Each structure stands twice: as structure tokens, then as C-alpha cells.
């Protein structure tokens, strides 16, 4: 990492980067909206696809939550959405419950929180905030989006397979996921899942490579690594984690495809099912678990780190003061990234692996709590003595820290191998990961959408609807997932179609109803957000160039999108992005493009 931008190599100052497209003709509809090479359009494509997949994922969750709260009852909505085959007489089938749970998890983790969050904001913000005309390769960027789109289509298509979509949980452990005799969804449904994910992984890798190369090579003059906004640090490190870990999931998927279709025994051994002994010999399901979680754990940090980066940026510009502890924040991001690759075994404490490994993973897992704690304290200190502009994006950022703390703390229970013995695979785990991923990371995504909406669409979202959206969601989020901890500690396993076969769990029925009711209300109020989002794209109040009075480079571009982002030269950067309310300046913000005044000192360490 050099101290200043590569201005000698950076020879494209005066003229635009001519990529594959030509500035001198009107773009066709297809070039502009469909196969765009422009990172800003691709960001919008990711956002739209991620949002649509999110709607599908939420509807699925409502369906299976209704089944849990009112077991084996007939609902018209089941009849309508699931049809006669999957819900005879309006009563959800037991294996379809598992299918819904599986696809819900897959869609939310990968299609919404990875592609929809990281894909959208990496594409939008990286070139703009580092001062580049576009990504290093616009073409690869476009391919990465369209492969993501295809993988989403295939995943949705798998819902319509006769024997049902993949039903072995989003973790798709073999042998259940390898053998169609074990559950119907492990036939064609699982094959389509694997194909979709393979394409998704390719898309993700292409995107990540692009982001890494762009951040390293295309920073503008004066934009040293330590003058980068934390958003870029987070997105950059996220991309690196992705490059390291996604290929391992791909290898697991390929080995599983071979076991399923080509008779190999990587994960299978000594199986008697449907009245016969299968031929597999010598494989181990635990190998799959290792391979899966080697991605699976970094994956959750791929989900949360971009949200952390967005929140740092939104919080600082809305607090009108620097993010507290810039260097510590960077160090924490790097520590989290490194540690995330050596904790995967905490998903496998009781997998049957050697207990000694359990000790090792407990140790590394509790280590990773420390940089996360440091970040939380830094955010809180950023609020201290600030001048907080409580825009909807800021509310979601504060909510992010709140739910990240709550969810993260229960991670300390789960990371302790001993305690995991009795809560593994119970609703305690479900409560934990929904609080950190389903709520915290999602708040980060909402915050990002509210904050950068003017940059995406040149208009403002309605703030009153934003306030309503936040406050109802905040109450419902805690209402759904806080009681769930008790259900888990009472011993209720997850992925159970109904609890009525255990009189022991009869007293959990009313808690489950409370959870489902909060979920239904919370989901309904997301309609407020969707209405606000789509309406404001067309009819929102027109935005000014820098509505949040922020310092970073994206707010120096014109409101109307142009290729190459800046009409003239790319701006040069003279300071770090966090000079808010700096003594000696009239305004409470000093954009990065403003040169240092005579005698002005840097009042921070970076």
C-alpha cells in the first residue's frame, strides 16, 4: 500500500476511460438498462433483484411461521401459494415445511444479504468513493450481475419441481441432500440448487476480484489507503474474504454433485435406505461439514462487514463528527477477516469430530468477539457529543449497533463448546443468527438504501414513511427474536414441522404464537418501505447534489448519472473523509476535495 495514489501510472486524468462502450452515440435501451457496463446501473440491478428475492424469502418465512404457530391447520394462503400438491386441503405438508425453511435460508443469506447488500453497495460506492471512472472491468462487472440473475432464476425455478425444491436445510448436509430416497427435495430440486449456487459463486468471485483490483489500482490522486472511507475498507476486505472462502463451497458442491450423479463416495458411506444397502463406501458427512462451514463462517462476516462499513459512514455524516477510532476500526476489520477463517468448527462442536478440535475452535471464536466489541464501542463513542441528525438512515444505523450487540452477545454462549452441547440446533441458534444477520445486517442494508438513494436515483425517499418503517420494524424485530431465545433454551429443536408430538413442548405454543404475530406485523410494515422505495424512484422529491452535507467523493458528482462519474477531471483528494465539525472551519463539514488551509493541522491519527 503506498502513501499516495499512483499519479504517474494514473495517466487517464484528462480523458475518460474508453472501455468497451463509445461515448459518442446515444445508448440503446439494452445498453443502458439491460447489459449496462456502468457500475451505478449494475448497483441498481443488484438492488432490485436482491429486493425481489427478499420479498420471496420473507413470504416463505411467514408461511412456515404460521405453520409453527397454528400447527397443521388449513390456511387459504397455503392453498393459494403452495397448491394442492404441497399443501393438500390447505394443510402444509411436512417435507414442504423443510423445503420452505431451506429455500428461505438460501435466498436470504446468499441472494439478499450477500448479493443484495455487498453487490449493490460495492458497485455503487467503490468507484465513486475512491475517485475512479468505473470498475476496473466494466464487462466482468456486467457478467457478474447477469450470472447472479441467472442463478436467482434457477433457484426460483427449483420451487416448481414436482418432488419439491431442496429440503435439507440451507446447510444441505449429505447424506440427506445426496439421496432422493431420503427426502423428495433431494432429487431434481437439489440438483437445481447446486447448479444455481455454482453460478452464484462464479458471479460472486468475479465481482469480488473486480472490487479488489479497483480499490488497489484506481484510487485517485491523494487517495491513500488511510484516506479511504471505512465503507471502502469494509467492502474491500469483504471481497478478499469472499475470494478466499467461496471456492471451498464450490468444491464442496462439485464433490456433492459427483456423489449424487457419478457414484463417488466423498461424503457417503455405509448407508441402508429404502430397503437396500447403497454402494457408497469410505466417505464422511463430516468432511462436507468442514468444507461447507469453511465458507459458511466467513460468509456471515461477508454479510456483516459491508453493513458495518455503511453504518460507519452514515453514522459519522449524521453525527457531524469523525468516526471514532479510524485506525482501530480498520484494525478490527482486518482482525475479523483473518479470524473468520479459523473459527468454522464452532458450527461443528458436536459433529463427532475430535473434541480437541472443539477446544481450538472455542478459543478462536471467543477471540473474534474482541474486535467486534471494539467496533461497537467505537460507534457508541461516535454518537457521544455529536450533533445527531436523526434521519431514517441514522436510525437504522443506531438500530444496527443495538441489534448487533444483542445478537453478538448470545454468540458468546454459542461459541463456548460446552454450552453449545445443549443449545446446538435449537431455536437459541435461530434467534442468534437472525438477530445478527436477519436484523442487524438488514438494518445496515436499509440504512444504506435510505442514505444513498439520492445518489442512486437522484431523488429523496420520504422521511416520514422512513420513520414509520424504522420504529415498527424495530419493535417487531425484538418481538420476534427475543422470546425465541427462551424457546431454544427450553430445548426445542429447529426445523421441526410441528411441536405437537411432544407434550413436553406444549407450553411453548403461546410463545410461538407471539413470535408469529410479531413477524406478521413486521412483515406487513415492510410494505411501507417498498411503497416508499418504488414510489420515490419516480415521484420522490428531487435531490440536491449533497443532501447529507457529507465529505466523501460520491457527493461531488452531479445528480444526473453520467458515464465516468465526473464531467471534467477526477477530483484530487487532500484530506481524510472525517473532517466534520473540525475547529477552524465555518461549515461543519469539509469535503475530501478541499485542500488543507495554511497552517491547518491534522487532528487525527491515520
Amino acid at each position: 500500500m503506498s502513501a499516495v495514489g499512483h499519479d504517474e501510472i494514473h495517466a487517464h486524468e484528462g480523458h475518460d476511460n474508453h472501455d468497451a462502450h463509445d461515448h459518442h452515440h446515444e445508448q440503446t435501451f439494452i445498453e443502458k438498462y439491460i447489459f449496462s457496463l456502468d457500475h451505478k446501473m449494475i448497483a441498481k440491478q443488484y438492488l432490485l433483484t436482491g429486493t425481489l428475492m427478499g420479498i420471496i424469502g420473507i413470504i416463505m418465512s411467514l408461511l412456515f411461521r404460521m405453520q409453527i404457530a397454528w400447527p397443521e391447520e388449513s390456511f387459504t394462503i397455503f392453498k393459494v401459494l403452495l397448491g394442492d400438491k404441497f399443501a393438500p386441503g390447505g394443510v402444509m405438508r411436512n417435507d414442504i415445511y423443510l423445503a420452505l425453511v431451506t429455500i428461505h435460508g438460501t435466498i436470504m443469506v446468499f441472494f439478499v444479504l450477500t448479493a443484495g447488500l455487498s453487490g449493490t453497495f460495492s458497485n455503487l460506492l467503490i468507484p465513486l468513493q475512491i475517485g475512479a471512472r468505473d470498475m476496473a472491468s466494466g464487462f466482468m462487472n456486467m457478467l457478474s450481475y447477469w450470472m447472479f440473475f441467472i442463478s436467482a432464476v434457477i433457484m426460483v425455478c427449483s420451487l416448481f419441481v414436482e418432488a419439491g425444491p431442496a429440503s435439507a436445510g440451507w446447510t444441505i448436509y449429505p447424506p440427506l441432500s445426496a439421496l432422493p430416497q431420503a427426502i423428495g427435495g433431494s432429487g431434481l430440486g437439489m440438483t437445481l440448487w447446486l447448479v444455481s449456487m455454482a453460478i452464484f459463486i462464479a458471479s460472486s468471485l468475479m465481482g469480488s476480484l473486480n472490487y479488489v483490483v479497483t480499490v488497489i489500482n484506481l484510487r485517485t490522486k491523494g487517495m491513500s489507503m488511510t484516506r479511504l472511507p471505512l465503507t471502502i475498507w469494509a467492502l474491500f476486505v469483504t471481497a478478499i474474504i469472499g475470494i478466499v472462502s467461496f471456492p471451498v463451497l464450490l468444491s464442496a458442491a462439485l464433490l456433492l454433485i459427483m456423489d449424487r450423479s457419478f457414484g463417488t463416495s466423498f461424503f457417503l458411506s455405509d448407508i441402508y435406505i429404502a430397503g437396500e444397502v447403497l454402494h457408497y463406501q469410505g466417505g464422511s458427512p463430516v468432511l462436507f461439514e468442514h468444507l461447507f462451514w469453511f465458507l459458511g463462517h466467513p460468509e456471515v462476516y461477508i454479510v456483516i462487514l459491508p453493513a458495518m462499513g455503511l453504518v460507519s459512514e452514515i453514522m459519522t455524516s449524521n453525527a457531524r463528527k469523525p468516526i471514532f477510532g479510524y485506525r482501530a476500526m480498520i484494525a478490527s476489520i482486518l482482525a475479523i477477516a483473518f479470524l473468520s477463517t479459523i473459527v468454522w468448527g464452532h458450527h461443528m462442536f458436536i459433529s463427532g469430530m475430535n473434541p480437541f478440535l472443539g477446544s481450538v475452535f472455542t478459543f478462536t471464536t471467543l477471540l473474534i468477539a474482541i474486535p467486534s466489541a471494539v467496533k461497537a464501542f467505537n460507534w457508541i463513542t461516535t454518537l457521544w457529543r455529536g450533533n445527531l441528525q436523526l434521519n431514517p438512515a441514522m436510525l437504522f444505523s443506531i438500530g444496527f449497533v443495538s441489534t448487533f450487540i444483542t445478537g453478538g452477545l448470545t454468540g458468546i454462549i454459542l461459541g463456548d463448546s460446552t454450552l453449545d452441547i445443549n443449545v446446538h440446533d435449537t431455536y437459541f441458534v435461530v434467534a442468534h443468527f437472525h438477530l445478527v444477520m436477519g436484523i442487524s445486517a438488514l438494518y445496515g442494508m436499509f440504512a444504506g438504501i435510505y442514505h444513498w438513494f439520492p445518489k442512486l436515483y437522484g431523488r429523496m425517499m420520504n422521511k416520514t414513511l422512513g420513520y414509520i418503517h424504522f420504529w415498527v420494524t424495530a419493535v417487531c424485530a425484538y418481538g420476534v427474536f427475543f422470546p425465541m431465545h427462551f424457546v431454544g433454551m427450553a430445548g426445542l429443536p429447529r426445523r421441526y414441522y410441528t411441536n405437537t408430538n411432544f407434550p413436553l413442548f406444549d407450553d411453548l405454543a403461546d410463545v410461538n404464537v407471539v413470535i408469529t404475530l410479531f413477524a406478521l406485523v413486521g412483515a406487513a410494515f415492510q410494505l411501507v418501505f417498498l411503497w416508499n422505495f418504488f414510489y420515490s424512484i419516480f415521484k420522490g422529491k428531487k435531490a440536491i447534489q449533497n443532501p447529507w452535507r457529507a465529505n466523501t467523493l460520491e457527493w461531488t458528482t452531479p445528480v444526473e448519472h453520467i458515464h465516468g462519474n465526473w464531467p471534467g477531471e477526477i477530483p484530487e483528494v487532500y484530506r481524510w473523509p472525517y473532517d466534520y465539525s473540525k475547529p477552524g472551519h465555518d461549515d461543519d463539514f469539509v469535503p475530501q476535495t478541499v485542500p488543507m488551509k495554511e497552517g491547518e493541522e491534522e487532528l487525527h491519527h491515520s
Partner: protein
Amino acid sequence: MTSLLVIVVLVLLGIAIWQLTKIFHLTQVGAATYNENPEVATDRDNNVNGYLMFGFLGFIYIFTIYSMMKWGDLLLGTPASEHGPQYDNLMSISMWLIGIVQVLTQFLLHYFSFINRGRKDRKAFYYADNDKLEFIWTIIPVIVLAGLILYGLYAWTNIMFIDEEAKEDAIYVEVYAKQFNWEVRYAGKDGKLGKANVRYIEGVNTLGVDMGDANAQDDIQASELHLPKGKQIIFKFRSQDVLHSAYMPHFRAQMNVVPGMVTQFGFVPTVTTDEMRQDPAIMKKVAHINELRSKKSAEATATGGTALEPYTFDYLLLCNKICGASHYNMQMKIVVEDEATFNKWLSAKQTLSAAVKESKQPAAPATGEAAPATAKDSTNTAKPDSTATKMTVAQVIKK
């Protein structure tokens, strides 16, 4: 008709929100600045949301306390194994720790959000970093978590490393999982379990025990898990088909059951089923559950359905790793009894070799009904175990 009403209500709700929004816009102070930079928070917005932030802190605290009061007694209660109290102690300490951190940090977060709510005439304090502070709030979590880890790993080593700890008179039990049923095999008088593999599954030998192995001859198969109080039980787990997990929550025990591998877990049961039934917390829970069940029964019989059976407490083995369509109904009763009763129960059971020999004989009765004798599943045991029949019926319905 109902759906039409629902739609009308939703539309009216939408219109109401739309109109409310318009009214809010009209009440904006300083309309000029609003038009210049619309939809950005004003001092009024900051004030309202600042107070709401502090109010939300109250909501978090109150909801936490309410949840603990209302649902606190759902937790598992007295542990039934020797390592159970150590587990519960570690859980308690951890929960207290994270509880304190939660209370403090949420307070700071929401209080700062409130007290620093933005005003036009307010200026923020430019304070970019403080390495001493960073050090303090790094080292405190390090020390606290280090303590927690040490205790946790000490407990883990005690619980999980069985081979070194295996007592002389440990009882070896194989727990065998398959879609969607459990079976158990006791090591019998020789204290050793015979070798087994799915390739040996045949007829009454549903566990695939290698009947050529000398150790297997006196093994005893059962479909109910009986355990003697005070003896170390070493479980060996095998799966017939897919991943399952043996979850025995009252004993603070869980271990995945993996096809192609033998996994293990050990504990010493310390509370018999009868003793646990007298535990005050359990009695309260059972009473509450029976109250709920009788209410549901009343509703059911009113509409012509069948009443629910009343509930008596029993220890349970549940499947806790997604294993297929009936994953939610894969259970086995566990009975903990004093050693004498346990030995009596076990000795009344047929050994495997006897069971296999018996099934291989041509039908002794002249009526030539050999087929039913072998067609019955593992019920060569004296008692027809309740869970077995429930299983088959449930399987038939749900498959």
C-alpha cells in the same frame, strides 16, 4: 367477502398514511429550507426521534424483564446428569456477564442518541481517536473472555474426553438412528458391544450386528432406553441412513449420529424418572401442560375429535439434526431407574443371539404361522414398548 373487506381496509390504511404524510409536510417549520433540501431531518424530527430512542431503551428493558418473568420457567430446570450442574453453572455465569454488558451498552447507545439529538445551534465535538480508551476496552473483554474460555474448556475436557475417564463398570449402550426411529443395543454381560455394519441387516437383526462376533452374542436390543442411576453410561452412536442427532436435553447431552462413523458421548445419570417427577419445577410444568391439554381436549371433543392423553413427565431422546420428512417426530423414551430395577428390566430381555436363532427356526406351531413371528419388528422383547407402536402409526400417516 372477508377478503374484499381486508382489501378495502388495506386501501383505506394506505390512503390514511398518504394523507398523514401530506399533513406532516404542511406542518414543516421553515418551509423554505425544506424545499431547498427536502426530506432531510429537521430539529423537530431530531427531537421526536431522540425521545423515541430513549423510549425504545425503556422498551428493550421492559420487554427483557417481561420475557424473563413470563417465559423464564420454560427453561430446563434441574439437570439429570453429573456434569449437568457444571453446565448450568457455566451457562449462568455467561448469561449474567452478557446480561450486564447488554444493559450497559444499550443504555449508552440509546442515551447518547437521545442527549445528542441534533439542533441547528449545536456543534459536535471533534474527537477522532484515543488509543488509551481503545486499549482499555480491548483488554477488559480479553480478560473477561479469557476467564470464560478457561472455565468452558475445563468443563469441555471433563465432559467430552471419555476414553481416559471410562470407569471399570461403565455401561456401553449403542444408540442406533434411522429414518424415523431410534433403537438401542446394550452390551450385555460381557460389557462389550459386538461389531456391526448396515450390511448385516437382515430380518430381526435390524441393527446390522455382526452375529459372527463373539461380543455380539449377549447384546440386547430394545426400543426404550433404560439407564441405571449413578453409573457411567457411554453411548456409541450409529446411523443407518442420514445424519441424525441424539439430543437428551435434561441430561445436557447431544451428539450427532453419523452414517459411516461411530460417535460417542458419556454421562452419569443422577436423577431417576420417579425422582424427577417429584421435582417441584417439573410438577409445576406438568400441571401447566395438562391444563393446556385438557383445554385443547375440550375443544377437540366439542368438534367431534379425540381428546389428548394427559401428560406424565418422561425423559426424552429427540432427533436434532434435520433428517427428512418426519424429523419432528423421531423420539425415544428414556427411563432412569435405580440399578436393581434396571438390571431386572435388562435381564428380562432376550439376547440378540437368542432372538436371531428364534427367528430362523421354522414355525413350531402346527398352524404354520411362521411369517408373523419374523414380521414383527424388534418386539421380541417382553414388553411392547410404547414408542415403537406410536412410531409406526405416525410413519404411516406422515409418509
